Structure formats: C-alpha cells, structure tokens
C-alpha cells in the first residue's frame, strides 16, 4: 500500500495517514513549506520509527492534549514530533525526530485528510518517490533508537524494542 490510514479508537472522528517517501532531494524546501503553512503535515525522520504503532501512539496523545488545550508546541503536527521524544525538550525533539535538510527519506503524517487533499498537496511538493509503507523497517536504525531513547540491553531481554520505546513515550510526563 502506498499510504496507510488509521482510525484511533479514542478519537473515532480523527484519521491518521502515513506515507513513506525515498530519494527525496528537497527536505529543506519541504520544511519551509510546512513553516509557511503551504503543507499541513508532520515530516518524520524515518530512521527513528520502528513501526506505525509508534506514530499512532504519538498522534493519539496529540489529539488528546489538543482536545484539552494542553499542547506543549504550536500545532498538532509539531506535537506529534514532540510526543515521539523521550524528553520534554521541544527543540531537541524537532531535531531528533523531524527531517533534517540532508535527509533523503521521510515519513509523512497527515491528520484528518478525509479526501486525500492534504496528502496530495504534500506529494506535489516532494521531489522524491512515494514508496510502500512495508519498506519502513528498512530505514529503521535500531542502534540510534536505543541511543536516543536510552534503552539498555537488560530491558530488551524481556521486552521488544517497540514496547520499550512506547512505554517511554507514554510515561514521559510522569517523571
């Protein structure tokens, strides 16, 4: 499937669409498009993503805090980046989980795109190819993920990497 859409049980009217792009030449421009409001999406650094579930957990929390007026960042797209991070440092989360200018691939997250218009507008701006979501795991950098999320091998004896990441994302506010 070229892109995948998900519905969240807790927010039944909200839709999350993911699309994977490779061979991207213009990440810097795309970031500018987002800042200028030409494109309504979150652009994620694919190497930090293990599975779509990780993004959905982040999106779920983003919808929740938006509903309660408790977002920590400017808009819901940046909130998704922030929720992926194991720390509460906003600029660090953008740097680590957002695309950087030199990246050649990206994972786009588009919210509430019922008629596919937002994704279409984004795709038009991307100088790259949309590829199948199944290829996501080819981009995952487990060593980097372990480093950023500070996951030791002790934890992984009885847990998957995904669960270790999700738990940190979910319990970030508690500490």
């Amino acid at each position, binding site marked *: 499937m070229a892109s995948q859409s*998900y519905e*969240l*049980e*807790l927010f039944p009217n909200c839709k999350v669409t993911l699309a994977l792009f490779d061979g991207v030449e213009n990440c810097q421009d795309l970031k500018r498009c987002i800042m200028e409001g030409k494109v309504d999406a979150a652009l994620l650094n694919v190497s930090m993503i293990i599975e779509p*579930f990780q993004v*959905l*957990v982040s999106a*779920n*929390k983003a919808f*929740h805090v938006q509903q*309660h007026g408790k977002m920590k960042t400017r808009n819901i797209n940046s909130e998704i980046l922030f929720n992926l991070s194991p720390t509460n440092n906003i600029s660090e989360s953008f740097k680590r989980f957002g695309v950087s200018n030199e990246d050649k691939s990206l994972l786009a997250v588009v919210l509430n795109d019922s008629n596919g218009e937002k994704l279409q507008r984004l795709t038009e701006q991307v100088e790259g190819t949309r590829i199948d979501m199944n290829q996501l795991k080819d981009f995952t950098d487990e060593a980097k993920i372990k480093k950023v999320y500070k996951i*030791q091998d*002790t*934890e992984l*004896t*009885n*847990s998957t990497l995904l*669960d*270790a990441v*999700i*738990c*940190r994302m*979910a*319990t970030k*506010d*508690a*500490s």
Partner: protein
Amino acid sequence: MEPDGAPTSSVGQTCDVGKLIKQGAEARVYSTTFMGRPTIVKERFKKKYRHPTLDKKLTHRRTTREVTAILRCRKSGICTPTVYFVDYESHRIYMENIENSTTVRDYIASEQKETQETNPETLVSLAQKIGTLLATMHDNDVIHGDLTTSNMLLRQPVDSSSPVVLIDFGLSSVSGLHEDKGVDLYVLERAFLSTHPNTENIFEHILVTYRKKSKKSSDVLKKLDEVRMREIGRASCRERV
C-alpha cells in the same frame, strides 16, 4: 450511582471505556483494544468525600507513581505490561493486556495438585525467578506495595524460561529505605502463606534467592525479621485483650 458520580456498571458490562472486568476500592479496570492491541484501562475514580483540588492532586500523584514504577522496573529488565497512554484528565492508564496468562497464584495451586507434592521442582524454580525479580526491583528502589501471587503472571505455555510478569503497581513508590523493602517482602510473605498452604519451603527459596541476588539484602532481611517480630507482638497483644 457510583462513588464518583459515574453511572452504575456491573462487572461484565460494556461502556464507552470498555468492558468492566474488575472494580476495586481505588479503581475500575476495563478491557478494550488500543490500535487493535488488547488493552487494560485502569481508571481511578474521584473520591467525593475529599476536597476536589486535593483529590485531583492525590489521584494524579498515584497515577504518576504507578507509571513511574512500571517504567523503572522495565528498565531493570523486569517484565511488566507496556504502558500505551496515560490520560491525566480522566485518570486512566491504558496498558497492555497480558493475555493467555495464568496468575502465579493459580499456577502454584495447579502444580501442587498435579504433582501431589508440596515442593515440586517447577515451584522451586519459580521461587528462584520471583526472588531474582524482587531483588532487582528493590535494588532499583522500587517498592511494589501490593505483592501477592495474584499480581504476578506467567505467560502460557509456562515453561522453565517463562519470565514472571509483575502487575498492579497501584500502591507503589520509590524508596531506598530497608524498612520499606522489608515491609514489601512481609506483605508478600503474609499473602503467600495465607493463600498457599504448605509453601513455607517455597517461600524460603524466594528469600534465599533474594539474599543471593540483592546487593542490600542482609539489611532488608533484618528489617523483615523486625517486622515479623512486631506483628507477632501485636497479635499477642490483641489476644490478651
């Protein structure tokens, strides 16, 4: 009407949170799915007899303590459910539902029944796993607060490599005090020996492993002895009266 004003629901009924599977003094537990994954929702309810500001603060603190303990245990290699989402507005914790599992409580009972022994090899090895788990937990200064064999799960099929999964951190805290750890063990001892007849030997194996594996075990076990003495003293006072 429930104590927090929620419509009365009985165990087994489904509402918008999920299917109610347990109601305790502190919280209701529901079963549902989260992104297709089987999930438990633990919802702490409001205590109307408390001042609302205080109630909100205390409930919030209990919720954060619970998830902090879960993460702390995970980091040290202890098996716990994965926390998916914490809703601090409704005080709900969405976490992994460990399906296809048995409680250690049921496992002990069934092993004793099946083998017709009080100390089968399987239970000795289980005791060692529990001892190791508790040593790790206490060495990381996590106090579970409600250690019972119902709060320990084994994923099926149970074999020698199955890890013990620790659940229900609702009363947990972080503490380095030997006294707190001693009390934690005492709670388990009381729960263990009252639930499972003729298991003194098995419990002893837990403590022997704990002593071996924990770095501060001798101080903690000394405190355990003190707590035991205190309780015996109290019990005999009650008898006299």
